[in-house]
């Protein structure tokens, strides 16, 4: 339910804060996102740099890197996901408790990046798990990662607890155990998750 902004400001000046349960809940969640310590490749170093003294993502609440997926709510997939590593990534994502978010950091996690034409490179982690924020770059600057965390925070602010578009954490039908791919003889089986990965159809002019 929308609040009248001017009324809210008036009351705030008088020392009375009005919010909704949703607003309070989302405010708490967005200001203390705990990332999973999950660096794969070069982008991981920029992720560590973003956590260090100069860029300091602790001021956005994302300070505590948890090594265990059971205690984390954000998975920053930083680096190239190879086909050998992909089942492990999906397993870790399954082990994270809801509500959980994924940031695909770097060109490799978005679509394979510079190593795209590789027999062992998975062309984007969104073939298997749902991604909330993509950060382009190779590697993206630490400021770009901070921008992504702020974008995610804005997304979390808009989350709903009830209604048609409610959060996946509260919607039993949407919750699923994302299927873990198996090692095949030449490729992963399945090579992608068809329920999840719907690339936009590309319209080609003058197809021959």
């Amino acid at each position: 339910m929308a609040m009248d902004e001017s009324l809210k400001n008036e009351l705030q000046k008088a020392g009375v804060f009005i919010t909704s349960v949703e607003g309070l809940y989302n405010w708490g969640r967005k200001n203390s996102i705990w990332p999973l310590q999950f660096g794969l490749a070069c982008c991981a170093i920029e992720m560590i740099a973003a956590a260090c003294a100069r860029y300091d993502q602790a001021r956005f609440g994302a300070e505590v890197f948890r090594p265990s997926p059971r205690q984390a709510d954000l998975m920053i997939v930083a680096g190239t996901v190879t086909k050998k590593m992909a089942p492990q990534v999906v397993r870790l994502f399954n082990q994270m408790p809801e509500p959980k978010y994924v940031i695909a950091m770097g060109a490799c996690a978005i679509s394979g990046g510079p190593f795209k034409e590789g027999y062992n490179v998975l062309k984007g982690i969104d073939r298997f798990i749902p991604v909330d924020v993509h950060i382009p770059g190779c590697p993206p600057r630490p400021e770009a990662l901070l921008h992504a965390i702020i974008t995610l925070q804005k997304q979390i602010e808009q989350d709903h607890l009830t209604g048609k578009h409610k959060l996946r954490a509260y919607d039993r039908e949407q919750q699923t155990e994302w299927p873990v791919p198996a090692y095949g003889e030449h490729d992963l089986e399945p090579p992608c998750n068809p329920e999840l990965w719907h690339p936009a159809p590309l319209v080609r002019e003058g197809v021959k």
Partner: protein
Amino acid sequence: MESLEEIKDRIEAAMAGVRLAIEGKSLVVGRQHLLDVVRFLKDDTGLAMDYCSNLCAVDWLPRTIKTRECDRDVQRDVPGHLEVVYDFYSMAKKHGPLQLRCRTEGREGTPSLPSITPLFRGAEFQEREAFDLYGIRFEGHPDLRRILMWDGFKSFPMRKDYRPPDDYEYEPTPHDEVLEKAKQHWPAPASAPVTPSKPA
């Protein structure tokens, strides 16, 4: 360090029945004498090649080499084979490199070569990598299994005739070879294909 010719002469003099060839800057050893030659290089006090720096496999497809011999153009058909190149240095004497080559018989299946891991522990992972990516079986290796790809993977990816799996369904900006691969996933063109007329 001595020159390649001098080293070759000394090895051939020290071991009966061993014949080496010199190609460019490397010595070519037959697979049956590889271990003996490597042991000689390691134990020789003058050379003291105690450090195997690099072990690299190369895939040569069957090809025709054109050379000029005695003022005539000569063509030789070289059958396909796999080759392993060794670079040895000496940490004791601080000289090197000495490059050795050893070739397999053909490249079908998993051709074999002797393993130098019993002499040089540093060759262990590099030989496993050559097995994983090229399919060369090293006899005498303590633990020959795949190192970079997963264990159930079939085929040897770095070979020149390897075809990678086809996951080019979604290519926003393809060009060159990637364009050809992506085209196989595009929908059929709107216009009907021209049917050839029947021959008279």
